[in-house]
């Protein structure tokens, strides 16, 4: 034997031993596989959330507006007691709920059509059509809505024959624009769920004498509800965090994001305290959604 042969044989032996060890110890295997992604999640993602939360307990020096690392709950106290903050938090949650409700209402018929009514050849094209707006820039879409909703714009022009006028800039305009922006995120999961709905269940329901309404309530809705919940996670959280749409079409309305933005330069701890509000709301929302089992079907 030459020396090279010895080393390769030894090397092969090591690899085999390692493979054997890994084979015998599934836990070790799992640990090695997951360490890197988990570190990413824990350090970069959860870590930054933790820093956000901790810095919410600091204060700023009113002289220099520099952050003073002294523990205090003043920011949260202020958050709860200042009327304007409470008002803005409630308004933001209201907007997120309204957008979610509107998206659900619109997504259901659209998804039903694309998944079950339209000719099968047409369906992939329709899905592409629904996704197309996602390719356009967010800002372009919002500015387009600004033009639509402005005085004498498309909305006014279309409603004029009925003696009505558009909503103008403000809270309704914000809800409308956000609904438009996040609608695809609701249609897609609902479309998938409806597509996977076995046709024989519907047939069985009809054979047993149920009319369309009854079939919808007792068969379709229970099976699609988890997907609606999954879609609502997107629409709700995206709406809650948005602060640009409201600046463009919201008139003088402010949401949580705007408050965070206006505090970030001068009062970072207050901005952090405000920033924990949407996090808390979304965690609560996710916990509620989990009970529906929607997260399993994501």
């Amino acid at each position, binding site marked *: 034997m030459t020396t090279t042969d010895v080393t390769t044989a030894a090397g092969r032996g090591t690899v085999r031993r390692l493979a054997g060890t890994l084979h015998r110890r599934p836990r070790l295997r799992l640990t090695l596989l997951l360490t890197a992604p988990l570190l990413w999640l824990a350090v970069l993602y959860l870590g930054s959330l933790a820093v956000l939360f901790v810095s919410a307990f600091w204060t700023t020096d009113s*002289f220099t507006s520099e952050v003073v690392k002294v523990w205090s709950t003043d920011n949260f106290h202020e958050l709860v007691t200042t009327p304007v903050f409470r*008002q803005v938090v409630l308004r933001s949650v209201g907007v997120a709920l309204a957008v979610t409700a509107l998206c659900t209402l619109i997504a259901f018929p659209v998804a039903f059509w694309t998944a079950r009514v339209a000719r099968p050849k047409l369906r992939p094209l329709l899905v592409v059509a629904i996704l197309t707006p996602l390719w356009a820039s967010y800002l372009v879409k919002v500015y387009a809505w600004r*033009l639509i909703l*402005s*005085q004498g714009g498309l909305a006014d022009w279309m409603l004029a024959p009925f003696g009505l006028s558009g909503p103008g*800039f403000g809270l309704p305009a914000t809800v409308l624009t956000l609904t438009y922006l996040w609608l695809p995120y609701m249609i897609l999961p609902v479309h998938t769920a409806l597509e996977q709905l076995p046709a024989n269940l519907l047939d069985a329901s009809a054979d047993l004498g149920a009319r369309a309404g009854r079939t919808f309530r007792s068969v379709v809705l229970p099976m699609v509800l988890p997907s609606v919940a999954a879609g609502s996670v997107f629409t709700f959280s995206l709406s809650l965090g948005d602060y640009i749409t409201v600046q463009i079409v919201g008139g003088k309305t402010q949401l949580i994001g705007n408050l965070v933005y*206006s505090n970030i330069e*001068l*009062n970072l701890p207050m901005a952090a305290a405000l920033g924990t509000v949407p996090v808390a709301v979304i965690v609560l929302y996710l916990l509620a959604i989990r009970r529906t089992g929607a997260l399993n079907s994501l």
Partner: protein
Amino acid sequence: MRLNRIPRAAAAAAALLLAAACSSSGSGGSSSTGLNPPGLKAPTKLGKAEGQVNLIAWAGYVEDGSNDPDVDWVHGFEKRTGCQVHSKVAASSDEMVKLMKTGEYDAVSASGDASLRLIASGDAAPVNTALVPNYKDVFGGLKNGAWNSVQGRMYGIPHGRGANLLMYNTEKVKPAPTSWSAVFEDAARHKGHVTAYDSPIYIADAALYLKATRPELKIKDPYALDQKQFDAAVALLKQQNADVGEYWSDYLKEVSAFKSGDSVIGTTWQVIASLTASEGAKVKALVPEEGSTGWSDTWMVSAKAEHPNCAYKWLDWIVSPRVNAQVAEYFGEAPANAKSCAETSDKNFCTVYHAADESYWKRIAFWNTPIEQCLDGRKDVKCVPYVKWVQAWTEIKG
């Protein structure tokens, strides 16, 4: 174009306060703040150019043709002086102050809400104006301002200025307004179509109006408000809020609002007024009888500058007649150099922007940073610092 005016007003001051509070006693001097900056010395003569210079600037102030091939005043400077320009665009006054503290930059185009901070913290050095030949042609109204000098010593070279005007739709607002009351007491006439600048510094606009209309409040300086004066201004703005359609911070937003008629009256800048009118909207802009607020930027040299000679050459270059005219036209502001008016491509430019009209600028209260120690020199009361302005602004918008 001026896209970055917004965040600078959102930025704040107050390192200055520390320095002011620590200084034993303001023995007067020309500056009413009683600010005693560290005793830094300005150079008495310039040496050889170092071959490069590092600048911090607002977007549009240091253009080398990469945004628009026709807009380039950096290459000419490099060719003439041999100083390679490295520039960093800052998005806010706070960012400028932070960057200056690193000591890696030689000069900065500071606004009124950053300049005093840089002076107080010793990050900006006094400037020997004798070493900047073009300084002699700078308009007198920009020299020795409260925002760029302390006790008669200049801490920079003025770059340009602008006023916050009252713009109105000539078809919908009749008779033509002459007073800010059109957006305060009489705002209800255009309910839902009034607009205002979206920044805490806008509280000063209300204070300026109260200064003229409610003498019993004794407001001397709209950036030095004690609690009572401040509360009055905030109350006025809360009342105005009911009639406001939207607040603007992005200038394209204001242009579109005036074009469509969503806004018919409110604050603006000359550049927005010109742009809106050029796009066919029937608008006019004016300085109302109470006067107005405004801004002024200053090029300052770092106390730790590694390339002071090139920095001085840049200061001289940027206020030289031709370049100052180019910057002013590109950015939409009044140039600082009196000779620039002969160099603008639009011969009417200086008239439109009132560049040489000192009586016009006398009516403008330039942005400054509100601090606890009253800027108007009052010693018996505490003024409301900018942090509180920010909080109040949130409450005003509701």
